[in-house]
């Protein structure tokens, strides 16, 4: 299950799902959350990573998000290293005749979640 301790390698991003609506979200620089991966805070700095862990804990307790965990980022692409995480980022890969994840996100606009 989710772990707020990062055991990964290289740059880290914090991800979760929004509690109310359920979407995949990523932690931003100001420790708020966004559905847009490009806005995610990516860092290798251990102090910042520790602070991200605490912020995620706090956001879980504030009932903003569920199931937070760190993911590894491939430094070469700045995208999630793990295959599964790339699907979480991109949405379903094959949905002919329907708006893609990205088109849908463009239509509804990004979701931002913050404790304040």
């Amino acid at each position, binding site marked *: 299950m989710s772990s707020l301790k990062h055991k990964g390698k290289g740059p880290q991003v914090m991800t979760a*799902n929004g*509690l*109310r*609506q*359920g*979407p*995949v979200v990523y932690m931003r620089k100001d420790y708020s959350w966004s559905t847009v991966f490009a806005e995610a805070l990516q860092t290798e700095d251990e102090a910042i990573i520790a602070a991200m862990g605490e912020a995620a804990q706090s956001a*879980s*307790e*504030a*009932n903003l998000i*569920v*199931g937070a965990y760190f993911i590894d980022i491939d430094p070469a692409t700045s995208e999630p*290293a*793990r*295959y*599964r995480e790339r*699907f*979480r980022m991109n*949405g*379903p*890969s*094959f*949905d*002919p*005749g*329907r*708006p893609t*994840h990205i088109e*849908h996100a463009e239509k509804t606009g990004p979701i931002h979640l913050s404790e304040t």
Partner: protein
Amino acid sequence: MYRYDEFDTQFVKSRTAQFREQVVRRLDGRLTEDQFRPLRLMNGLYLQLHAYMLRVAVPYGTLSSDQLRQLAHIGEKYDRGYGHVTTRQNIQFNWPELVDVPNILDDLAAVEMHAIQTSGNCIRNVTSDPWAGAAKDEVEDPRPTCELLRQWSSLHPEFTFLPRKFKIAVTASENDRAAIRAHDIGIKIVRNEAGEVGYHIYVGGGLGRTPIIAESLNEFVSREDLLPYLEAIMRVYNRYGRRDNKYKARIKILVQETGIKQFTQDVDAEYAAMTPADVAVGPEELKRIAAYFAAPKFETLSDKDEAFDKAVILDPALSRWTQNNLGQHRKAGYTIVNISLKPTDGAPGDITSEQMRAVADLADKYSFSELRFTHEQNVVLPHVKRADALAIYKALQDAGLADANIGKVTDIICCPGMDYCALATARSIPISQAIAQRFADPERQHIIGEMKIKISGCINACGHHHVGHIGILGLEKAGVEFYQLTLGGDATETAVVGDRTGKGLSQTELIDGIERIVEFYIETREGQERFLDTYRRVGIAPFKEVLYADH
């Protein structure tokens, strides 16, 4: 169809009200996620790869046009305009928001539907023959039995915390269209030599990581004895089922480890120790339930319809549809219309809200407002006059639902896989798409004949790959998807688990390999042999050879 009684209605209503409260408490933090998760799961709400997913129960796959319209409304209002028909004859919504789910449950309750027992270690939705009540080859309509089981198993206090989930399927035909032997308990309604109707009970089937075909436990259980007998099985399972290891907790493992002989004795001993009358349901009650499933008012018709026959001769597409998508109805002049949810360019089992409405309208107009979802992820209009088939075909064409591929190579069972499912190891939908496109030519599909391809995106086998004529399992290694093949599986009355071919394949190798397998079959078959028959005759070796020909 079964109508809720007052108790059902009240119960579902109060359950929804409770859930509304629980969501409020979750959102304001009075419930933590750990506390809330089991509550939402008990109401069919999962958190999947991208979002929440709500699984709505469709008891034994039967639903009314009004219910389908309500599902269309839910898909449109709270989701992204579609739903996904599952191999459990249920429907899933892939994008609901938690805050909307209480409203969705209210909307479901308004048409006597809910999402209870679609998750958890309980007896799940009982599945059945999608042609129930219409099939020419059935002993009787299996749905009153299903409904009896639904009432017995719903919220049964003793069976709410089983070692693991539990699935029951019922058929009443020699031709098993409900894959009963892939279930924890499979029930076949039979008639004995004395002409009495009873139940042949199979036990210990299941797919997943340890695929096993159910074994025959008792060839004839009388009507009155059904519930006490099943209850005895459940008690034995509840008592001896492996709770120590999730992967060994299904009844199939217990039956394997105990041996069917000993297991039978255990069940008999349990049965002997109980007071059947405490559990059994009297003939009055059975009659009451059966009355809900009284056959519609069929007209006396002839099977001959010159106008239709002529249209079929003139239109090859219609002719194919007639051949593949119509099933034999028990009443002269009637037919069973199977609507394919397997277009060459869409995810198997998906149906848009618009299409749901179109189908609901057809059911109202032509099929006594009745519909079925099938475990092969299609839809059925069970009672259609042959004379109306042409009008239905045209309406289905307008709705984009006229694919004439039932039972053919493109009628693929496919789980959501990595595109939606949090447990997946690989994608399955793109594989089914690639196969469907490769074999899109209807004439070619016709030449190939009956072919069941089934795809799962992980070892849990929701896509029933072990019992596909060609089964495909998606796996991943170091960020690369690959696919393992099984051949010769069968989900019907001649059920068998398929044989693994060996080394996994990339998507491209897989699709090319399947094409070679199909071509080899066509060259090798004798007479009217189906793929499965040829496979059984020649064995796996030559198929393996062509599959790995380019390695």
